[in-house]
Structure formats: structure tokens, C-alpha cells
């Protein structure tokens, strides 16, 4: 498809007549076809590989897509990290201070994974409401909090403040 597109330069060569107009029309068709193919490619790839981020509150409110991978982020709740007997499976809870989500992950955690520190996990919810993580990301610097985690914490804080006022 691309080979045709590349030859558009040839069509720029100025020459008159019906034949040339016909030819130009063909090139435009080819160009549009190439463009359409690229758009289709991109949309298709986007559809299958975009991962949404949700806060634990959103997860608990059932705002998350069913049967699809997503990301959840917040702080690792203090005292919630438990290692299973095999030494590789880890259970922990992610919280935005309002709600918590239980997470299970098997494998080696990143260096900066720690209790009461920010974390982002990617995976899906199982039937028991436990988040089965396939990937766990922690920040690269101990003073740095991922913007989405910070936003989730701020949001939960705001909601809680509003609730306190209402009471």
C-alpha cells in the first residue's frame, strides 16, 4: 500500500491533458486508501491496548469495565503486605484513604514498592473482588508521586471533606 503512496511525487510532475488528470485522480485515491489504512491500523491498536486508570473509590463504586484490564493506583496500606508461602505471591491493599482494594501479585516487586508509598497496579478484578495484578509499578524517586496517584488521593480527600460537612 505504501509503495503507491510514495510515488505521489511523480504525480507532481507538471503535464497537461485528460490522461494526466485521470492519473492524478488515481493517485489521490491511492493516497486516501493509504491514509484510511493507517487510521484503521491506529484505531484498531488503540482499541485493544488502552488501559484506563481508576482510583480505589471508583473500583468500589463499580465504575470499572468488566472483564477488561485496567490500572488502579494509590498508597499501599500500612501493614497490609502479606507474602504467601512460596515467597513470590504477595497480597496487599491499595488505598486512596477512602476505599481500599485488595491486590494479589506473583513475581518480583519493583525496588521502590513499600508500605505507605505510592503504587500503580495493572490487571483485572476477579469474581471475589480481588485485583489480580499482572504488573506492579512504583515510582523511581522517593519524593516523587505519580500524578494519577496524587489525583486519586486528592479526590478521595475532597469527597471525605464534603461528607464531613454534610454530617
Amino acid at each position, binding site marked *: 500500500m505504501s509503495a503507491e503512496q510514495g510515488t505521489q*511525487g511523480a504525480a507532481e510532475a507538471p503535464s497537461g491533458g485528460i490522461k494526466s488528470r485521470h492519473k492524478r485522480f488515481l493517485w489521490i485515491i491511492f493516497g486516501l486508501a493509504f491514509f484510511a489504512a*493507517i487510521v484503521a491500523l491506529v484505531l484498531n491498536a*488503540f482499541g*485493544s491496548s488502552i488501559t484506563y486508570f481508576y482510583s480505589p473509590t471508583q473500583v468500589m463504586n463499580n465504575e470499572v469495565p468488566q472483564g477488561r484490564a485496567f490500572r488502579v493506583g494509590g498508597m499501599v496500606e500500612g501493614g497490609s503486605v502479606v507474602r504467601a508461602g512460596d515467597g*513470590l505471591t504477595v497480597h496487599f491493599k491499595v488505598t486512596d484513604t477512602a476505599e481500599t482494594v485488595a491486590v494479589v501479585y506473583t513475581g*518480583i516487586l519493583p*525496588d521502590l514498592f513499600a508500605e505507605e508509598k505510592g503504587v500503580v497496579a495493572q490487571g483485572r478484578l476477579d469474581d471475589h473482588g480481588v485485583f489480580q495484578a499482572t504488573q506492579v509499578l512504583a515510582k523511581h524517586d*522517593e519524593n*516523587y508521586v505519580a500524578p494519577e496517584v496524587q489525583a486519586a488521593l486528592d479526590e478521595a480527600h475532597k469527597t471525605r471533606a464534603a461528607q464531613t460537612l454534610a454530617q
Partner: protein
Amino acid sequence: MIPEIGQFALVLAALLMVVQGTLPLVGASKGISAWMTLSRRTAQGAFFFLALALGCLIYSFIVNDFSVLNVANNSNTKLPVIYRIAASWGSHEGSILMWVFMLGLWSCAVSIFSKHLPEEMTARVLGVMGLVTTGLLFFLLLTSNPFDRIFPVPLEGRDLNPLLQDIGMILHPPMLYMGYVGFSVAFAFAIAALLGGRLDATWARWSRPWTTLAWCFLTVGILIGSWWAYYELGWGGWWFWDPVENASLMPWLVGTALIHSLAVTEKRGTFKVWTVLLAICTFSLSLLGTFLVRSGVLTSVHAFATDPQRGMFILTFLALVIGGSLALFAFRAPKVGTAGTFKIISRESALLANNVLLTVACGTVLLGTLYPLFLDALKLGKISVGPPYFEAVFVPLMAPLVFLMGVGAVARWKESTLPDLWARLRWAAVITLVAAVALPFILGRTSPTSVALLALGFAMAFWIVTASLAGFFDRVKHVEGGFREKLARQPRSFWGMFAAHIGVAVFIIGVTVVKGFEAERDVRMMPGDTVSVGGYTFRFESIEDRSGPNYHATRGTFELSKDGKAIRKLYPEKRVYFAHGMPMTEAAIDSGFFGDRYVSLGEPINDGKQSWSARVYHKPFVTWIWYGSLLMTLGGLLAISDRRYRVSARRETAKPSLSPLEPAKLEKA
């Protein structure tokens, strides 16, 4: 005192740059010779002051002058001297100073190696570079001064992020920046050509070596970054499609299109407008990359504390540079016009198609990188675009690109015919087909997807190699003399192209094999345990404590063996750095020509038996990814060293207005 000298030097450099960005440009348009010649002096003077400023900052780091905020935040008395030097460009402020220093270096180089250019051209090129430098220097002085003081003076610094305490930190940023900033020369040449209305083969010949050199630096910079992430982050991957990596890949893709487009402009006098547009885009993407990485909009190791003022400044600067140059382009480009015709089947067509593919590939990467930012800014949800997107889009675009690389190597300029192309390429096609079909089965793969992916990878690599060879034999066929003489007769630029293209093939083999055959295991081990992966056995022997200069480490000893024969010992470490209390994994890698064996420690398991979780990998041919990139760089360097740049340089001094190769004129005649 020393920091103040540095600060003062920066101010002086800024003043010189204001002069360089104005007078020579005005002088060139009004024909005032004295104002034009000024540009060389200011470029050299500013470089002196920028070097002085960088020297002052490095000195402050070496002597642990914690009264400088930047030093206090990024260094520590226990930090080894070499990393204190590297810490100079480890912070936001330092890295921007490095950027500006590099700009000064390139300007200075242009002022020295442009003796053969017409005075007007040099003045315009240096003037444009002066404007860019002025913008960045004001950014540095107004929003991110690296010499800001702090009071009271802390007794100890906060230390450099442990991830950055590595040889990669010494090499990766300077190389990458040399590449980014180097494209400013190509940009300046393009703008100068638009301003002066001179856009011909000679212009392309002048800007070609600069562009290729910048491309070489960028290639090496990305290569080192990838290699660093591979061994330092402990995840065993060499490319993560992280937005920051994408930020460096985008200028590389368009830069690659640019060096090929420049080749056509030089040899055939066509693609002029396209070349200029690519030059503008390449540098704009370099600036965008700096903005994305440094402004903190992206979550990554490279992001520093967010400061909206900085973000606004860079964004405004970006808008001015990109908007201004594109407006100039729209206004002037139609006057330059196109020249030279070519047929559908020709080398020009193959190169144009590849240009389009590279640009589209860059566009898709840009989309995947910026889309999450747009959604977030519009409050439409937070998303991340993962590697599957980039892989799904990139591979279908690269396959035709590689196919055309082979065709382009043998196609004639201006006009080729299909039967002729087939005659030249049929052996290459046969060998490629056989290799692609047979190799996956020979290597023992049977599942359809893995066979298909391997076949595609091998087909691409074999096609490049065989078609390049076909192109080579085609070239030497008509050269008289023995084989050795035939080889010697080929110009360096040909060998450059040959090496770079073979580099792409080597790279593809590396990617294909490591994707198809890598093996990874996460295991729990106690001393005495063994684990096998990819035919190799790792035996966990012992674990002990060790102290480093600014960290405490737990070091494991592993014995690597194959078929019962011991190969070597590996010592992965888990470090905790004193200043940050930050843990760090140091993987141990047995690296060889045909791939790596890789082990990294996870965490201790509290079972009283000294057990640890560990991750072991076998990465066949992963090294070929770096070898391939090095070959591409070597190719670029060979092309720059071609004789004709030096010869033509001399010829043009004598007769500046004559362009030795202008096909448009020849055809009309």
C-alpha cells in the same frame, strides 16, 4: 565566588547571543558585511562563556559546595567524584545548562568549519542558532538557575538518585543532547535557506554532514539509554515504549527521513521543500522531547518536580520556534519551487515512500505519547497507552519500509523498470524467502504465531543483507581491476550506507531472536538451589553483606553453567543507599556475542534459610540490538568522512556561486 563567576558567564553568554541572534540576520538581509562577520566572533565568545559556566557548576559539585541549591539537592560528600561530575547534569537546571552548552558547542563548530560558505549563509545559520540559544539561556536564567544559593548552608547534600549513579549517566545524557541539539544546525540551515531563497544541491551538501553527525550522536544516545535501562532497571527489557523513550525516538525517525531526503536533494536537486520541512520537524521534535521530559508532564525517571512557570516558558518557546518556522516555511517555500522529475519506479520514489513511512511512524508514536496527556487535560479519564499499541502499529509500517530499503539499494535514479529490478533482486528474493520459511522450523518453532513472527523478522533482515549485497555487486561490476581494487574504488559514503543498512538488519535479527526465544523465570531460591533457563543453569551459592562508598549491599553469588560445565560466577546485588534509604537492584549479566544470561535479586524471604526471590533470564542475541545500532552509527560517521565534502569545500571557496551538481539545470539544458 565560583558559582557567581558561572552565573556571570551565563549572563555574558546571553548578551552575546542576543547580538548573534539579531545583527548578523539584519546584516545578511541588508548586505552589511561587518555585521555578518560578527556572528563567528559571538559564537566563539559565547561558547567560551558557556564552557566556563559549565566548568563552574562541575567545580561546585566536585568540591561539595552545598551552598548551591542544585548541588545540595543532587550530591553528597560520599558520592564518588565521577558521579559528582555526572550529577552536574543530573538535575533539571544542570541538564538545561548542558543543553545550552551543547548548542554553544555546535554553533562554535559551525563558525569554525564554515569558512567555505558564503558569508551571508554563515551569518544566517549562526543568527538562527543565536536566536534559539537566546531563548534557552533566558529560560535557564529566569526559571532554572543552576547557581541559585541556599541559606543556611546544609552540612550534607541529598545525594544523586541511586538509579543515576551509573556509567550510563556519564554517557547517555551528553550523547543524547548532542543529537537533539545537533539538529538545530540542520534547522538553522533550513531557515537560512528559506530566508535567503537559496535552496539547491549545494545547500544540501553543506547541511548534510552536520545533520548526519547529529543523527549519529542521537543514535548512540538512544542506544546507551536503552542498554542502561536494560541492565540497571533490572527488568530485562531493552525498550518499554515509555513516553520518555518515545520522545527520543520521534526526532530519530524524522531525522532518519531527513538524512535520506537530503541525499536526494544533494544528488538530484529534488525534494527540496520536503527536506526543509523535515529539518524543521526534526528540531521541533527535539524541543518537544526536551519539553515532555523536563516539564514533569510525564511520569518517569526523567521527570523532576513540576513547576508550571517552567512548563509555560518552554511551551511558549516551542510555539514561537515551531509556529515561526512553519509560518516562514508557508510564506517562502512556494517560491523555492520543485525541480527535477522522476518516474514511479525509481530510487527517488523508493526514498520518498520511505520518508513517508518514517514520518507516519513518527506520527503514530506522537499520537500514542500525547493522547493520554490530551485526555487527561480535557478531564476525559486517565489512560495509558501500552507497548501493544506501538508494536501493533510499528511493525506493519516497518515491513514495507524494509522492503523498499532493499529496492532503493538497486533502483536507478530517475527511472527504473520492474523487469530490471527483478533481474537485480531475484537472488536476494529467493534467499530471503528460503531463509524466512526454513529458519523458524530449523530453530524448532511450530506454533503458527511464533513461526509467523520469526519468519517476518528473518525475512526483513535477510532481505536487507541480500539486497544490499546485490546493490554492491551491481556497483562494482563496471569497475575495472581486481576485487580489491573494486572495493577500494567505492566512496566512503557508499560504505556508510552499506554499514548502516546492515546495522538495521543486525538490529532486526537481535529483536526477532530475543522476542522469539527469550526465557524468564521468577523463582524462590535458597543457597544450594539451582534453576535452569534456556539451557543454562544458575546455582545460588551464597549471600553476603558488602559495603560500598555510599551504600550498603547484599551480594549473592551465582554459578552459571551449561551442560554441567561451569562458565563463570555472577554477583547480583541489592543495594540500599544511605542518603535516600532507597533500595536498588544491580543485575549481574554474563554477556556474550550471541546473547546474555542475566540474574537479579528480588527480596529476602523470611523463612530462616536465607532464601531470596530471584529473576533469571536467557536473552539470546539481545546484544545484536546494540551491535546493530553501533553499525548504523559507524555508517553515519563513514558517510561524513566522504572525500567529496572536503574536496567540494575547497572548490566552493574558489567559486562560491557555482553548484557542481544541479540536475534541474542540466535537464533543462
